[in-house]
């Protein structure tokens, strides 16, 4: 069984705003019964152009129902500009998180909101790039791009978790891989300016201090930065880390992940004996 947070369960058992708004200002339907989930959203604005009433009807699993319910609660009272800015991550966070495999439910919520707003503004804008990439689940290039960009996805599996694309016959995996590469290539350099060596060392030290050491210490271990040569980060471990057989894996995996995340994706961790 899936590990759902209490909040997900609560919204599933007591969903808010189920139904359809009468004389809606905007409506949208996303998903399909073949795909296993679908969401119909309708909203009405007040005189200040804020969302006064919003309702949903959802066919799908517990998390699809819970994310729909959460979305309606979140955007109630917002202007359309504000509602447009709600990301699928926000919806998931509102619910205390979703299992990775269920993130597509939050993406479905986000898409329905966007589409409903487009509908209010007068039909969907012309989408020249709305090419279907995944035939099995009818997922477009634009949807995959957006999911990759907003959620910083890097593997086909992640894209499947977030959009369902790739979860059927697998015929679209190559195309998905290409989209990931393309999107990551556009975003990577902008997000990470080139670091000078001093900057790099400083940053590494800071991250070790702030992000890594505390959790190692919890288990009675410690880590020390010995040197940085190019992208090689030499570290020494102490305490339980130094003797633990699993240290190799923990260190490489955990420290490398953190440093790559915060400093530079090219970094490689090497352990040296002090």
């Amino acid at each position, binding site marked *: 069984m*899936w590990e759902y947070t209490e909040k997900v*369960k609560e919204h*599933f*058992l007591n*969903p808010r705003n*189920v139904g359809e708004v009468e004389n809606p200002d905007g409506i949208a*339907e996303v998903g399909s*019964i*073949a*795909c*296993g*989930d*679908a*969401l*119909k959203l309708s909203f009405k604005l007040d005189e200040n152009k804020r969302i006064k009433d919003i309702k949903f*009807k*959802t*066919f*799908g*699993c*517990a998390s*699809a*129902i819970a994310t729909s319910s959460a979305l309606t609660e979140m955007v109630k009272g917002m202007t359309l500009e504000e509602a447009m800015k709600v990301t699928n991550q926000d919806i998931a966070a509102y619910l205390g998180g979703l299992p990775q495999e269920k993130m597509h439910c939050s993406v479905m919520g986000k898409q329905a909101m966007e589409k409903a707003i487009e509908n209010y503004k007068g039909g969907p804008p012309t989408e020249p790039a709305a090419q279907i990439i995944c035939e*099995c*689940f009818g997922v477009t290039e634009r949807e995959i791009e957006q999911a990759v960009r907003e959620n910083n996805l890097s593997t086909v599996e992640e894209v*499947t978790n977030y959009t*369902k694309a790739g*979860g*059927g016959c697998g015929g679209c995996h190559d195309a998905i891989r290409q989209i990931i590469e393309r999107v990551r290539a556009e975003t990577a350099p902008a997000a990470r300016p080139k670091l000078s060596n001093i900057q790099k060392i400083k940053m590494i030290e800071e991250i070790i201090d702030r992000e890594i050491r505390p959790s190692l210490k919890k288990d009675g271990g410690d880590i020390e930065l010995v040197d940085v040569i190019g992208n090689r980060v030499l570290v020494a471990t102490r305490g339980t880390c130094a003797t633990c057989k699993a240290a190799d894996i923990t260190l490489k995996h955990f420290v490398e992940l953190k440093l790559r995340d915060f400093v530079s994706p090219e970094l490689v961790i090497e352990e040296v004996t002090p």
Partner: protein
Amino acid sequence: MKTIYLDNNATTQVAEEVLDAMLPYFRDLYGNPSSMHTFGGQVGRKIREAREQAAALIGAGPEEIIFTSCGTESDNAAIRSALAAHPDRRHVLTSRVEHPAVKSLCDHLSRQGYRITELPVDKDGILDMTQYERALTPDTAVVSLMWANNETGVLFPVEKAAELAKERGILFHTDAVQAVGKIPINMKATSIDMLSISGHKLHAPKGIGIFYVRKGTRFSPFLIGGHQENGRRGGTENTPSIIGLGKACELAARNMDAENRMVLRLRDKLEAEILTRIPNSRVNGTRLYRLPNTTNISFEFVEGEAILLLMDDYGICASSGSACTSGSLQPSHVLRAMGVPFTMAHGSIRFSFSIYNTEDEVDFVIEKLPPIIERLRSMSPYWNAGDQVCSVQ
């Protein structure tokens, strides 16, 4: 909250008598059956007894029973042994609705260059025997067809299929994990060469299975090691579990008729009541050739995981073939192979009974389920209470 366990095709409760039979072999009688001393030897005797009990349940000889760790191991051992026995043959014949223990293995073999034929089934889950016969070729090393389907309970005519294979000199294996203990089986009267059993489906513990190999069948072991199981499966015996499984087989042989009558009555009552009380529901798989304890019912326009979780709130345990519960994004391969429409496939629920279920439990489900479905349908964008269609299609 009381647990109402209607998921007996997933696993069953260990029978009280089985547990009692096992306990001494954890604590006091922990000897190794291979030892020379009396202390170990007495355990060896108990294992012989268990082997006889297991053999009796399926009309086999004790020398045809190999204890394994689970049904999956038995399936793997059977298919791999058959391939090793016929290194010149490169074809495996199976069906689209097999358990992953067979299906995934066949996928794996196909990547290694074997030719795999997965026979289709019709909308009722029934195999086309003419098509089966045509798929048997001189290159076929082994046929593997399940006796009873775990999701729908539909029975394959494996005895007939085994005869046809035998006429052509092809080895025949059946995954009988769901069938053993639920339908009478007499191996002496069949041409089946190999058969898999899982202990925890018949009130023995998890982690123990049986691999039946007909006497005289060419065989090569899956686990190579000591002389245990006559050199056909190395590894120190899981003595308490083997003894427990022996007991479970004895109980099954003794009680099968009475149990079947009981679970059949409960299953039929639940099924009939659900179909009349809940519109747009239907049974998946033929109702003519089916295990007495299983029903697989689809509810149109709702999703299975949501149904399961709402039932879970009342302590009712069942399972679903919906995408969300199958661990993938598509509904179960069994329902897809049967061509169950998407509107139905995502909302399928399997109820499977055992001797421990009661009429009160069935009544409770009959009372709780209709409002659950209604509630989810009221949330579903596809459901308009106005345009219900006839519930029996």
